């Protein structure tokens, strides 16, 4: 391995010639400092990526839609969001334990903590699943009728179907979510009116609320996507640690995955108050 010349050696011609004979680059050496710098730079890009969305959210919240965002925020389940915050914070803790365990050379403890981190990440996604499907049940999802109503107005719904859904194979009736009774019979207008508030299929959302839920789905969706990527990275680490290729000698890999995982956590820490607690 070639020693790197110090500044003094540069002017030392004798030394120079001596070294030239067996010159080669040590290109298999991994530069952990460099790798960490690269990961940090990547995290900056992630922050800017979410930052742009936070900017948009900020513009709408402080702008004309403040009151409507406030109103729409009430429909989110604070307990579910708070629980999820706790889950993610804990997973950051278990991630740190995993790194410490690896640094101290304990393979099994590392695997245990990594496994726990994955379990918590999955728990987060499960809660997220129930939150989203809960919204869907109340007919809140993009491209749904209630969203389209905000765009076209209720009187034009058949036009909406004509313009946007005709090709998808959905019939006009299905599209309208014509409510049926348990027996499968179409409900009368009176029966529809008797339905609980949230279930009423033609509940109209104001434009501000549509944008609120649009932002909600886009931002928590993107965050959820990052959680899934995080789970895959953690699984990769479990695999490498179990195989013995990542050890206390080169724990940099786990550390870098940990950095990413903390970022996912951090973003949620901002998402939670801005969506759930604004109401």
């Amino acid at each position, binding site marked *: 391995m070639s020693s790197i010349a110090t500044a003094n050696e540069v002017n030392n011609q004798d030394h120079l010639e001596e070294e030239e004979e067996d010159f080669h680059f040590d290109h298999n050496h991994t530069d952990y400092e460099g790798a960490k710098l690269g990961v940090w730079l990547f995290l900056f890009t992630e922050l800017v990526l979410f930052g742009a969305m936070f900017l948009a959210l900020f513009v709408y919240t402080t702008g004309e839609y403040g009151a409507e965002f406030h109103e729409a925020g009430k429909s989110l389940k604070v307990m579910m969001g708070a629980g999820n915050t706790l889950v993610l914070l804990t997973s950051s803790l278990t991630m740190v334990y995993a790194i410490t365990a690896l640094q101290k050379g304990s393979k099994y403890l590392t695997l245990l903590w990594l496994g726990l981190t994955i379990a918590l990440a999955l728990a987060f996604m499960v809660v997220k699943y129930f939150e989203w499907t809960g919204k869907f049940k109340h007919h809140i999802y993009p491209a749904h009728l209630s969203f389209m109503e905000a765009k076209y107005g209720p009187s034009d719904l058949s036009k909406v179907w004509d313009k*946007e859904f005709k090709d998808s194979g959905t019939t006009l009736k299905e599209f309208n979510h014509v409510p049926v009774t348990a027996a499968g019979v179409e409900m009368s207008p009176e029966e529809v009116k008797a339905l609980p508030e949230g279930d009423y299929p033609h509940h109209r959302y*104001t434009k501000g609320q549509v944008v609120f839920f649009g932002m909600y789905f886009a931002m928590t969706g993107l965050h959820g996507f990052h959680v899934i990527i995080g789970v895959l990275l953690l699984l990769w680490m479990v695999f490498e640690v179990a195989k013995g290729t990542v050890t206390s000698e080169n724990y940099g890999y786990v550390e870098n995955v940990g950095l990413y995982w903390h970022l996912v956590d951090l973003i949620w820490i901002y998402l939670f108050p801005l969506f759930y607690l604004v109401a």
Partner: protein
Amino acid sequence: MSTASAKSFYEDKAVILEGLYNYWEELGKNNSFFRKLARLHTWVGSTDHKRIGILYLISMLTFFAVGVSLGFTIRLEWFYPGEQFINARVYNSVFTLHGIIMIFLFVIPGIPAIFGNFFLPIVIGAADVSFPRLNLASWYMFMTGAFLAAISLFVGSTGDGSLTFVAPDGGWTFYAPYSLQSNSNVGLAVFAAFILGFSSIFTGLNFITTIHRMRVEGMGWYDMPLFVWGLYATSWIQVLATPVIGITLALIGIERLFGVGIFDAAMGGDPVLYQHMFWIYSHPAVYVMVIPGMGVVSEIIAVFSQRTIFGYKSMVFSMMGIAFVGYFVWAHHMFTSGMTETSMIVFSFLTFFVAVPTAVKVFNWLATLYKGSIQLDPPMIWALSFVFLFSIGGFTGLALGMINIDIAVHDTLYVVGHFHYTMFGGGAVSLFAGLHYWYPKMFGRMYNFFYAYVGWALFFVGFNTLYGSMLVAGIMGMPRRYHDYLPEFTTIHQIGTVGSVIMIFGLIIVFGNLFISLFSGKKAEDNPWMGKTLEWDQASTPPVLFNFKKQPRINHGPYDYEGEWV
């Protein structure tokens, strides 16, 4: 660990999936197909930064050729008023694709991806970039984005079941709400641009880490050639600005797929917010296109006047300054979109402010030339054209920065002319300068000077005729992106089209010369231009696999020319 050999990198290899390569090599012993496959693997599976640079060079020049053809199509269509041979719908797609291809596939990645990859590690005395595999992955992302942009031309239908022409339209800026309503392939095009953005981010990330971690012992920050500083400033913009357009375009895609309403005024969203988010990236991106070119031109002007670059540190800080201030000028694209007068004045002021570091650079180049022994070889001719054309681009830009003028000429051909003077005359001309400068080092052969001069002269004349005529037509009131025009603009459009023909002839000669010289050019010396930076000083021609046959040493600064007073 491998011992450096005397072979050039063309005969050597560093590949991913080495087992696969060996397998193909083995089969290739008596099968020419597998021999070819193994040979292909040494390129598309290469982690060598020089080979990746050449992969980028080949792919980008191909896209450039496509972009030029599309631009020429527009020029031909404009030769007479009225519809000539493409209808308005096709015309919309042609100018959109011209923009997408030229911006996202050629000028933005241009110099960093080609010369940054090839020369950054060499000029800082490193064996490769910090993350060679990520580097290759960036090229694959780039090609995936290009592939998606290409298929957006052909795939899909307009909704009634019949296949029609569905290439994306509405311009490379994808302004909402049209981009949300257009039934062309805008969704695929924005997805392509999203992927290209990430390719650009990873290249930037790689370069920053490389510059921080891999400079050869003895090379301090202020011992780096200005080309490296240019790449450094550019990389920070790529890392910190590209994600904004990534998410903005992703939201356009999500909007089209699911209708979340964030930018759709009909659903409560704000289209002007889209414009803000788009330009927060896309204005800094203008500097991504130009700052590395400024680095290249600084190298060339110093070498061909054999003179220390004037005001090294002011060059460094002006580049970093442009990169920084460039973040705060975006809304000058939006003076007519609806803003408060206060914000218009603030953004107008900041726009003038960004001209200050740019002017510092131009004056420093001139001061470098002063009393230098100027050698007007082809690279120098191109570099000086850069200074000239980019200055015109800069001055017309200052005019556009004035709110009252901007409101008058907004969305006219004046803007298009200004834009091409800066991007083509700045970004692409500096790329051609770099190509003529580093060609002997990259390919080990020298091109023919006579044809290089002829090609340049035609290009230069054609360029100014073409884009100068656009400036004039814009002042006369010709709107941009129009398929048809009033008869009084006929002459000025015809002048422009003639200019484009001359320019394309010039380009054909330039690139024909470079291409033919690959085979018939005479062998290049190690240091034909008497440069002082490491790639001329200490690397062989073409360089070996890990760049240096012996440990590179810093025994003089990048611009220490003999007999030079500093």
